[in-house]
């Protein structure tokens, strides 16, 4: 960890007084990274990229946006029609929110598959979940800003949930609204918070990276690096790989932004908010649908709210629910199966969340909700005890060196499961 010899005199001068260049060299250049990371390890930096995109486009939008119930919708349409490249800013921001969540959800499910939440990365995992919660709050409040029908009614439904809290619920809702219904004070505070929270996210991202760099990345085989032969310096290996992945990701992001910009949106949000007309189906943005499904699966309001928050809460205690010493699902024949069941379950919940809560949808929604919690609270603790993991390789280099094939696709089981 010796300081590198910098060629530029000014850099040397600064670094001697404040080791910022040594720090960057250490954390971004020589930072040892497992050599066998696959492309699922790109999504962390992709999420970071999206956070920057959101902040930059958001700041320029805020220069042209008016947080007032009489002007918000008009100001967004003015951005779309009369502000130079305003349509681009707005579509980059609106679709950016979706792609931010796509990146983060893939990142999170990557962690679930490869056991990245296990010792010694519990805090890293929990900080990631804090980011997710802050993102959901930010995106929810951002969606209110254009003050369309879904903005207004989404805000009304979601803020109303807090009234289920015993004793203080009603007061909390009044506080959120700044009055006795969703109205101008609500829009004002949501705008203020929508501007603030992304910077709070930046702060937690710094902590997240701090925790990451303490023990370094997990990897697809889930065993620790055992020396120099198992790792590569971050630069140029992973900078090159991350940038290539970024190019692919941006192609998708731009594809939607420029050619199907309203794909993730709701037609109702092109109708100005009207407190007198309730839309037929009030649905949140797609990335909140699974929680919405859980909320509506419980006949009791407070129970629904608790379970909805519990869906994230259970992820916080996941490192202590899954006691299996093996991290990667590659060596956990049964976990690997229930992992994909969980993925399917979350997609089902999302689908239920998009549909009206009646008939079969209720039944399926309840079953999917029960299964979601059973996965974490029943299956994982049981698997920790009863599952027989496959033998682990001696080191990361071993499978990597064996023809290279093993590191990419699925590993051939070494004995029957």
């Amino acid at each position, binding site marked *: 960890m010796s300081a590198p010899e910098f060629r530029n005199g000014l850099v040397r001068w600064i670094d001697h007084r404040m080791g910022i260049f040594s720090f960057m060299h250490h954390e971004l250049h020589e930072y040892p990274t497992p050599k066998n990371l696959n492309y699922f390890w790109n999504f962390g930096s992709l999420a970071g990229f999206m956070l920057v995109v959101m902040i930059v486009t958001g700041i320029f939008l805020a220069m042209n946006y008016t947080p007032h119930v009489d002007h918000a919708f008009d100001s967004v349409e003015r951005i779309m029609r009369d502000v130079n490249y305003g349509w681009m800013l707005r579509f980059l921001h609106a679709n950016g929110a979706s792609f931010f969540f796509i990146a983060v959800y893939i990142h999170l499910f990557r962690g679930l598959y490869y056991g990245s939440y296990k010792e010694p990365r519990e805090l890293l995992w929990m900080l990631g979940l804090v980011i997710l919660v802050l993102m959901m709050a930010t995106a929810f409040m951002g969606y209110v800003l254009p003050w369309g029908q879904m903005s207004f009614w989404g805000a009304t439904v979601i803020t109303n949930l807090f009234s289920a809290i015993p004793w203080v619920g009603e007061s909390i809702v009044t506080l959120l609204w700044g009055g006795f219904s969703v109205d101008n004070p609500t829009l004002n505070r949501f705008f203020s918070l929508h501007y603030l929270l992304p910077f709070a996210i930046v702060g937690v991202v710094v902590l997240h990276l701090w925790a990451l760099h303490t023990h370094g990345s997990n990897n697809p085989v889930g065993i620790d690096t055992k020396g120099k032969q198992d790792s590569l310096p971050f630069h140029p290996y992973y900078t090159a790989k991350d940038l290539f992945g970024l190019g692919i990701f941006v192609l998708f992001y731009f594809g939607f932004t420029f050619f199907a910009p309203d794909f993730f949106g709701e037609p109702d949000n*092109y109708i100005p908010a009207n407190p007198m007309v309730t839309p*037929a189906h009030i649905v949140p943005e797609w990335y909140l649908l699974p929680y919405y499904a859980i909320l509506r699966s419980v006949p009791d309001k407070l129970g629904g709210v608790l379970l909805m928050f519990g869906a994230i809460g259970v992820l916080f205690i996941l490192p202590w629910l899954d006691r299996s010493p093996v991290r990667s699902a590659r060596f956990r024949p049964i976990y690997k199966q229930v992992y994909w069941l969980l993925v399917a379950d979350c997609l089902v919940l999302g689908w239920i969340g998009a*549909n009206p809560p009646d008939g079969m949808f209720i039944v399926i929604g309840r079953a999917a909700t029960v299964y979601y919690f059973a996965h974490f609270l029943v299956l994982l603790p049981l698997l920790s005890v009863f599952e027989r993991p496959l033998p682990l390789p001696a080191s990361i280099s071993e499978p990597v060196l064996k023809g290279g094939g093993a590191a990419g696709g699925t590993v051939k089981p070494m004995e029957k499961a």
Partner: protein
Amino acid sequence: MRPANARMFRAGLVALLLALPFAATAAEAPKPPPQPWSYQGVFGVFDRPALQRGFLVYKQVCSACHSMSRLSYRNLLQLGFDEAAAAGFAAEVQIADGPNDEGEMYDRPGRLSDRFKKPFANEKAARASNNGAYPPDLSLMAKARPVGADYSFALLTGYINAPSNVQLMEGMHYNKYFPGFQIAMAPPLAENAVEFPDGTPASIENMARDVVQFLAWAAEPKMEERKRIGVKAMLFVLVLTALLYAVKRKVWAAVH
């Protein structure tokens, strides 16, 4: 057993994703049939003569009831009208302005910078002349309904006689594409309601097609610019990504 399971999951997921759009739009009215709009697709652009005809239909028919207050007369230049023609359309209406130096409000002919004039002073007035129903602003109509353009076209051409078992409410009309089927808007288009300067026959279908294309343009006047820039941006990122891939291969060559 394991690969079979995996295949089943994947099949299930695909089935689910396919079922999604149908489940979401399972309303009672039939799905509006998709129309071959010239502006669709990556390279699609608006058909300027059709937009001009569509504007005439709006001006001479729909504007009696519907406002389009997000448009200004200057936006008509984009439809291919020259400045004199656009200014002429603006000057046809009287706009309230003021106060002048004496503190009086006054009417003056419209200018290019004015927003399209609304047919009614406010919602109450609009309802009063429409049997209690409110003709919504059409500026964003093409985006404010699922498949808005196809829907609007289907709506304008979807008036039929009410089935014998349906009791039409007072002042309502039967339309097979309107949710609930009973709509307060009387069939707005009649054969030859408009005379097109370019000689296009003013059939109901032609008028509907043109006015809906005009609505689609109005909902996002920057759509052509968006796609034009999008193509360049995609090409740029595509080349950049190819280069980045080459760099990545080179950097990693020694490791693999």
